[in-house]
């Protein structure tokens, strides 16, 4: 599945101008729209659908219906409601997908149903090698106890209550730990982005 990367662009206002450009088929706005909401839809769908192909299908169908509706109606009544509109269209398609799956399971013997890809293939699509390397760096900066906690929760997939009991922490500690890790990750990502930008500028200046 071709997931959009890099991670979400900085805060963006989905205002009337944005919706108007999207409705008019502006190429760069459309690209931003599919990258931005593609990631959000992938995050939302990975807990609900088993295979990367199904997720991709739902995302593409969501985009198609959103853009078709925008162009047919000439925009949205409230431009600020674009995100909510995308989410509700996706929910409708999900509902249809579930219904189709139920019908298929009721009519096709289990042995003839296609084997779904394991969830791992879905997981791997949300993060690339460079982001994983950044997370590795971030995790290396954490105290040993916190690294161990992350490993127990995510890699070893142990029961969180049992982990907390054994490590003498509460559930809130896990959330705060993840909060701290993701803040450091975002900071590292921003620093890397700035460094890349600077390197790109230097290269341009050197060539110029």
């Amino acid at each position, binding site marked *: 599945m071709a997931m959009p990367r890099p*991670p*979400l662009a900085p805060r963006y206002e989905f205002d009337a101008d944005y919706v108007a450009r999207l409705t008019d088929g502006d190429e760069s706005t459309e690209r931003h729209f599919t990258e931005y909401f593609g990631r*959000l839809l992938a995050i939302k769908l990975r807990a609900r659908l088993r295979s990367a192909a199904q997720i991709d299908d739902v995302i593409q169908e969501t985009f198609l219906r959103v853009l078709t509706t925008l162009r047919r109606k000439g925009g949205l009544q409230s431009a600020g409601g674009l995100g909510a509109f995308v989410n509700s269209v996706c929910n409708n398609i999900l509902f249809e997908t579930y219904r189709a799956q139920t019908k298929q399971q009721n009519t096709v013997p289990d042995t003839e149903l296609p084997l779904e890809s394991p969830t791992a293939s879905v997981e791997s699509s949300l993060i690339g090698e460079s982001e*994983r390397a950044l997370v*590795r760096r971030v995790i290396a900066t954490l105290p040993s106890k916190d690294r161990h906690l*992350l490993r127990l929760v995510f890699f070893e997939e142990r029961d*969180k209550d049992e982990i907390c009991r054994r490590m003498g922490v509460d559930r809130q500690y896990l959330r705060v730990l993840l909060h701290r*890790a993701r803040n450091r990750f975002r900071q590292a990502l921003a620093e890397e982005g700035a460094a890349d930008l600077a390197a790109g500028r230097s290269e341009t200046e050197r060539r110029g």
Partner: protein
Amino acid sequence: MDHAAAIRTLAAERYALDEMTVDEREAFEAHFFECPECAQAVDAAVMVAEAARNADVYGPALAGPAPAAPARPPAPVWLSLAAAAVLALVAGYQTFVTIPGLRRALDTPHALAPTALAPTSRGDGIVVPRAQDGPVALALDINDAPETANLVYHLRTSTDDVILTGQAPVPPPGTPLLLLVPGTLLPPGQYVVVVREDASDPREVGTYRFTVR
């Protein structure tokens, strides 16, 4: 869910930790589709969580052990156990202690040649060949009959970084505790596995040392 509630309740982290009810999840999704700030937060939290599901992100943190000195040859008392444990074991992984991250890779039959480890109080222990593409199988000799139903094990580097910890049922008498560890977690170096009874005042069952080369 409004933005203040999302921030106050660390909604992005709870979402990535899969701690929300269905209703909460839907409410938060409805919010982050409209709120770029929360969208960024949940995106970053999910990416960290996803990366943390891979053993390799812990690599640098675990790269403590320096290349080890040659290990002493195993004492004769090990030989019978080693010979028994080197028998290839096929399938039946569920009866072993496996690390969850390995389970997906082990859902088909594999032959294993475990390295037998006996309790030891010092030294570098036995040499275990490095396995980059698959699991390392360790057969821990449980001499001292535990009084609990379960055991707790901790695998550490020589610099005391914990690589993994877990719980396992006490194996039947005369049977070693088999531990499968992803080879990627065991770069060359010295390691210690400590096994204790799973109790509030745990008694140590054995300390097992080995060197990966």
